[in-house]
């Protein structure tokens, strides 16, 4: 047994709880981008071109034969002690068509990569998506990320009209 003053530890905690603003745009790794590409190719199965939209260089508008076929957004969200990369594919009406975890880094919470679980987002409200025991943080993180991403994209689309 050791008598230790916890002040030092509390000091570190306190310091790190001060918000650190991160203004630089995240750039996905080559591996994440490659996975995103192959997922898109598999899904659309046609010639398409993608161009980044103005609000975020990782959000793309997908065109084929001069018409918009949909949108693809690559985004990061926090897992328990790290970040994971995912992609959301939207229809031209901004309905969620597909959700994929591109890169999951941690040992805990990888269960959110499960395709059956991710499919829920296509047919349910985010708040109705089921929890996963043992992956609480990642589940909540994904739910919040998908919700805010969808809001952002819909707001952007309204502003384009």
């Amino acid at each position: 047994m050791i008598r230790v003053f916890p002040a030092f530890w509390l000091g570190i905690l306190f310091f790190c709880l001060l918000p650190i603003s991160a203004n630089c745009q995240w750039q996905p790794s080559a591996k994440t981008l490659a996975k995103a590409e192959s997922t898109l190719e598999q899904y659309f199965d046609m010639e398409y071109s993608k161009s980044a939209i103005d609000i975020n260089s990782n959000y793309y508008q997908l065109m084929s034969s001069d018409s918009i076929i949909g949108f693809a957004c690559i985004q990061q969200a926090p897992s328990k002690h790290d970040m994971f990369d995912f992609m959301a594919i939207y229809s031209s009406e901004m309905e969620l068509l597909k959700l994929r975890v591109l890169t999951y880094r941690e040992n805990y919470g990888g269960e959110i990569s499960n395709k059956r679980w991710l499919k829920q987002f296509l047919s349910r409200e985010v708040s109705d998506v089921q929890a996963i025991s043992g992956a609480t943080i990642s589940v909540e993180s994904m739910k919040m990320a998908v919700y805010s991403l969808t809001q952002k994209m819909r707001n952007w689309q309204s502003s384009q009209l």
Partner: protein
Amino acid sequence: MTMKLKSQLIMVLTLGFSISLFAQNTAENILGSDEKLIIGGYGQIDGNFNLDDDNKMNSNGKLDVHRLVTFLGYKFNDKITFVSEVEYEHIVELYVEQAFLDYKIKDNMSLQAGLMLIPMGIQNLYHEPPTFNGVERTNVDKYIVPTTWREIGVGLSGRLDEQSLNYQLMVVNGPLGYDNGVAKFSGSKGIRSGRQKGAEAIVSDFDFAGRVSYYGMLGWNFGASFYQGNSETTDFEADSTQVGMTMMGIDARYNNGAFQARGQYTFADLENTDEYNAKTSSDVGSKLLGYYIEAGYNLLEGKSENELIAFARYENYNTHEETDGFDANLAYDRTDKTFGLTYKLNQGAAFKADYQLKGNEASPEETKHFNLGVAVWF
């Protein structure tokens, strides 16, 4: 102050303060592909009060910061991370719960080396206070598993995404059964007191531990764990001071909307206990067995972001399931029935209350306990 424990109803109010403040924005600010330092933690504060038949406090109560854990991690690069958890128990006891290096061999496979959690059962791996119902961890996990079990070793940890499987395999030092004449294993506590926790651990033999969990069925999470090896001893030559250990456990968790349930079945076959007991004058059983089943229902489902879970749990744990060469002590065949409420705020903070009936095979009466708790996780 007299202690009339036998004839009185013991109402133990455990005020567990589990406030988990999962600060999503804080985590996003600290973590990021460029940020290397990761901070987190969890806490459990208890209050225990003894009440007499008139439900009045008749002796000193106890308020305890049962545990306060700080998580400190550092990402050297994309492949190498250092993970550590430092725990304060009862304010003055300092322990390290985890301290290991994680090296990513592949996207979904890591090599880990250092002080790690033994992957036996649910609560040894997932023990942040707001993640379980009830103020205290289950006694099945405390005495049979025995949580928090962590030792030094090397292991492989990974995920098979297509098959929806998580797996872990490690080589570790075992619990210390014999310490210079003193028996660390006992009839009442099984192997619990033998946990070395990485503190100048004695290793005479290397043991193996592993776990597989399957999450392919929506709503379910199944797990199977094993442990195989020999306990350690300060007397390297003396086989009689070692106990062979074969442990297996299966567990399952289920949730669907407002309903949640979990169960676990863990047993340990200990070999050579007859020689060990003869040498150390101890009374270790040759088989330990524990299981529990729990069901809960979120009363605020669909009505609130917060959760109010009403739950009930039945536990049975017996550190004398079998004994070799002497009669089992029936008092070690214990049963806990727990009924309670968990009020979860924002997934990171929880207030808990539970009522427990504890009994054993040697006594016809059950003792009654009331616990309150606060759980924190950030």
